[in-house]
């Protein structure tokens, strides 16, 4: 098997597991919905359309970030049942293929949540974007990958630590700040139409390229850390 086939096998396995249990997607979706509702109660978005346009990008990403974090811890906990992770470590397949497959699966889960959440968000927050909406089709996948690639990596990193549920946000949030800044600014620029998102899309692309490379290169070290 070549590298792509290894990745595809891991991806298929993760998708099949999720299809049978639907744990991550259901949990994430409901959690994100709750965050959206709580934030709406805090800010009353329907009465102030201008302010809503300015802060909605941030609120959407905060909801997605928190939701993704609940699922990321679960995604590796599955592999520890029956010592599956040890089997992965013994396997001749490249370790980074396991990582890329898992990250792609998480990416698809979060994207599915976005597909459901975006219309709900628009309705609840009474949003009328003033910029070029099609650019969100670039920004959302890039931002999601930026969150998920580091999230999957750090979830694996905190897997065998004491209180891993606490550790993941402690590590993931500071590292993700530049990406969060870029995706929030790009989304806000589309919603308000006040400035061009091009610079922030470039920042996101740079962040994604740099950290995907770092994750793929260092995953072997993390998997074999003993």
């Amino acid at each position, binding site marked *: 098997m070549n590298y792509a086939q290894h990745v595809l096998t891991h991806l298929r396995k993760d998708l099949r597991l999720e299809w049978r249990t639907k744990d991550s997607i259901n949990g994430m979706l409901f959690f994100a919905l709750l965050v959206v509702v709580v934030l709406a109660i805090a800010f009353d978005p329907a009465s102030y359309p201008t302010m809503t346009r300015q802060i909605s990008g941030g609120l959407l990403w905060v909801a997605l970030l928190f939701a993704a974090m609940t699922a990321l811890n679960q995604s590796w906990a599955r592999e520890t049942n029956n010592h599956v992770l040890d089997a992965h470590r013994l396997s001749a397949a490249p370790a980074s293929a396991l990582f890329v497959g898992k990250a792609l699966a998480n990416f698809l889960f979060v994207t599915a949540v976005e597909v459901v959440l975006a219309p709900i968000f628009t309705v609840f927050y009474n949003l009328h974007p003033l910029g070029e909406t099609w650019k969100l089709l670039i920004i959302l996948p890039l931002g999601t990958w930026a969150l998920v690639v580091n999230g999957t990596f750090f979830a694996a990193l905190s897997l065998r630590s004491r209180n891993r549920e606490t550790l993941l946000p402690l*590590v993931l949030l500071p590292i993700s700040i*530049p990406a969060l800044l870029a995706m929030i600014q790009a989304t806000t620029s589309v919603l308000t139409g006040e400035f061009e998102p091009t610079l922030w899309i470039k920042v996101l692309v740079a962040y994604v390229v740099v950290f995907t490379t770092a994750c793929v290169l260092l995953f072997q070290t993390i998997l074999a*850390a003993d």
Partner: protein
Amino acid sequence: MPKWALGWFGLTLLMLAFGFYEAMTAPTEATMGNLYRVFFYHLPHTILSFVFPYLNCGASLLYLYWRNRNVERAAGADAFALASAEVTVLFSSIGLATGMLWGRAAWGIWWAWDARMTTYLLLWLLYVSYLLVRRYSATGQTAVIAAVLAIFAAIDVPICFMSIRWWRTQHPAAVFGGGADSGIDPSMVPAVLWNMLAWAMWGAFVLGLRFAIERRRQRKANAYALGFLGDEGGSGFQEAR
């Protein structure tokens, strides 16, 4: 403590005293008066706290390289990484504290989300999270996990720096000029340089001290592991990580 280290410590104290003298006798600033003298402590600490993270990253890379080749050197590199991360947090905490005191006195507010302060706060957050990870991770994996995280943090610092600069130049509101950084009077330069040197020596001293303590802790843990010191019943060393 070896003799040369004691000598270094004495020299550092002398330098710090001289730096203090220079800072207090430098000419009074035109608009802020004597208030600006905190600058001579603020600037060295902030600049030096951007140096130690790269020592940390270098030591972490060396650790990962030596991990399966030379255990003894790897342990040394790990101790150095831990020491430099702690010194980073120490220096950036002092940098933040002096900056806030100065900001309160000069601008009337403790904190503004301008480019430099935001970047600097993130630097502090990154290395505090590094120390937390060292504390939380399972024994035996701490070094590897910390080394990987250190590399990520070191990659993150320049990205943060650039993106936050763009963020704040795009929204021109709420930026307080360049502070005192937009050029200082030549008569103040010697005081800045002396203080910089003195605090660099102090940082190196604390780093070395912490490194030596961590090496001792490692040796003690090894001795326990090999059974030279009996059972691990001692309560102290589990927590000393």
